[in-house]
């Protein structure tokens, strides 16, 4: 049999129908749903009298619009946000899908809830009307974002019409240096390939530095595959993956577990499998990084300086000029001289327990800079509860951070957690686009430890100096 990649294998196991031109009908094992990209899809079902084909494989949770303040039981002030969350409540009930309402301790960011509850398992196809569905690739699941029309298509048919992408391998060799995290890996890869470098590909991340990552670190890496333009990111499952899944509420049990693990052990790229593109980075060459511009590809080691637009070529010259103007930065300025006024720790990229531990380790016994607004938004109610149990919440609060309830929050600022005009944030989220965290707000993407360091000093900081 022809040597196949991990992507080839998962794809082959999900083809329902293949047309002569290669267009496939692909079966979807898990459909995750949130309130922003689903109302029009459910409405479409109502208008055509269609049902949800597999409600038992459909999991809904509100996350984008939900308030993260401690008084959220009082309801949502913004009328449009409230209508959207109410619509999901109603749609979940009417169509009988699994649902974690705002009041449920298991509620959180959909990409944190899915793995946490054991919905996401190796070898599955997972989709959601959200680009950061790529996160679930960390389990060796083929996971990607879809638009609302496709959400409706999956609800009605449990399938998607797809053409296969090409295979790309991103290998991170060797060991990471102290202070370097999964976030630094994934940003450095985007820095190397550009935000369109992965377009048309599914990426498989591999190599010693990836193997050495925990499941949570792997989720951080795959989460940002979309920022590199790839349809999905994948990491072959191994013992760490099985250990993570075992015992979770919706993971298989008993004989089914044994059968599942036996299948999962076949999920790796065969020796000699063909990759259309290969990128290799040395783990020891990766430094703690920070973004300076308005695209995730605008990334540099924290020890560097703001680049000159003229150092780029093509359309990037104008884009870099625009970015420096928007960000209020000058070419040649040292990145560590950039003063910040806001710190956000959270999001589907970095809102898991290990992220909070990494930030708390830097913050322990310290105070944030005077005047700094700093908030921690755990990725789920369960992450929040665990952090409280471990004493992390106390470390954050004593340092001067706000300790919030779970949601997407300031990653995309659809709820009241926003930057004001001109505010500058060190953020553990995934996008530094213009206006992303608030109108004319300025975002520097960093790891949780780097965000914590910046909160203490008041400027972008090399976390290695604080370890």
């Amino acid at each position, binding site marked *: 049999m022809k040597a196949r990649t991990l992507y080839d294998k998962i794809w082959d196991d999900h083809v329902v129908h293949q047309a002569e031109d290669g267009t496939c009908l692909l079966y979807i094992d898990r459909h995750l749903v949130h309130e922003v990209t689903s109302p029009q899809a459910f409405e479409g079902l109502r208008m055509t009298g269609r049902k949800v084909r597999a409600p038992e494989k459909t999991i809904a949770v509100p996350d984008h619009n939900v308030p993260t303040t401690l008084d959220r039981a009082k309801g949502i002030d913004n009328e449009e946000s409230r209508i959207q969350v109410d619509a999901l409540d109603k749609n979940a009930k009417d169509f009988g899908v699994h649902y974690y309402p705002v009041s449920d301790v298991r509620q959180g960011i959909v990409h944190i809830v899915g793995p946490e509850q054991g919905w996401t398992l190796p070898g599955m196809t997972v989709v959601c009307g959200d680009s950061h569905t790529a996160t679930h690739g960390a389990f060796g699941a083929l996971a990607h974002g879809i638009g609302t029309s*496709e959400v409706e298509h999956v609800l009605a048919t449990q399938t998607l019409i797809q053409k296969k992408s090409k295979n790309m391998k991103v290998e991170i060799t060797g060991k990471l240096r102290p202070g370097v995290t999964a976030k630094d890996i994934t940003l450095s890869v985007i820095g190397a390939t550009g935000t369109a470098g992965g377009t048309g590909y599914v990426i498989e991340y591999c190599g010693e530095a990836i193997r050495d990552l925990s499941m949570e670190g792997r989720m951080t890496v795959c989460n940002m595959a979309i920022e590199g333009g790839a349809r999905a990111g994948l990491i072959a499952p191994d013992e760490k993956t099985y250990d993570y899944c075992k015992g979770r509420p919706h993971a298989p049990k008993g004989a089914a577990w044994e059968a599942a693990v036996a299948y999962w052990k076949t999920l790796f790229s065969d020796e000699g499998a063909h990759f259309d593109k290969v990128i290799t980075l040395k783990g020891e060459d990766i430094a703690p990084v920070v973004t300076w511009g308005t695209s995730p590809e605008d990334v540099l080691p924290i020890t560097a300086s703001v680049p000159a637009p003229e150092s780029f070529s093509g359309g990037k010259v104008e884009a870099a000029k625009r970015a420096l103007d928007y960000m209020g930065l000058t070419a040649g300025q040292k990145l560590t001289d950039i003063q910040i006024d806001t710190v956000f720790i959270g999001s589907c990229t970095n809102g898991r327990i290990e992220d909070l531990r990494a930030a708390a380790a830097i913050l322990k016994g310290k105070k944030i800079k005077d005047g700094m607004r700093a908030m921690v938004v755990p990725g789920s109610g369960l992450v929040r509860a665990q952090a409280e149990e471990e004493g992390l919440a106390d470390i954050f609060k004593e340092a001067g951070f706000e300790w919030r309830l779970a949601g997407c929050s300031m990653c995309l600022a659809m709820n009241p957690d926003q930057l004001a005009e001109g505010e500058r944030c060190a953020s553990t989220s995934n996008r530094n686009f213009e206006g992303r965290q608030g109108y004319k707000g300025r975002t520097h993407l960093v790891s949780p430890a780097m965000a914590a360091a910046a909160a203490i000093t008041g400027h972008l900081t090399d976390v290695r100096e604080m370890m």
Partner: protein
Amino acid sequence: MEKFTTVTGIAAPMPLVNIDTDMIIPKVFLKTIKRSGLGVNLFDEMRYDRQGNEIPDFVLNKPAYRDAQIIVAGDNFGCGSSREHAPWALADFGIKSVISTSFADIFYNNCFKNGILPIILPQEAVDVLMKDAEKGANARMEINLEAQTVTASDGQVFAFEVDAFKKHCLMNGLDDIGLTMEKAASIDSYEAKAGTLRPWV
């Protein structure tokens, strides 16, 4: 969905690279539970100041481009989020086609579901069409989906590739959910087989 055959119209030049979905339709407009009415907020933060006044320099505010049906854009148009609100806003404004060297994957797929044709052409061709678009309202381009061509105002013709199935759906305005439901028997038999092979799913 409206059928797409040919479009002859004004093309607006947007040479900026990496125009992301947050630029196309900022998140404050994602709170709608409808698909319609987003055209007025297309490119909102680039198009209006904080008081809601038009920014005269923005291309779609210029008299020549207010009725544009085509956008010629820099690399990697539509990167970022999966929000279908981006093509909904473009379609509601009246945009029928976007031409660039590359598109983000999810945005590209979303366009076809909404009667918009995203056209990928090599850099040299996009450069020529960008210059053509910069000429203003008198320079009308013609896009012919059947023939898979873009014709610049001076008659230069550029051929483009498009997936045959996507082309078929767009030309006939087909609802692909209906098409897939015709394959219900295949889905049934897949589920039966997968249920045996991977019962834990």
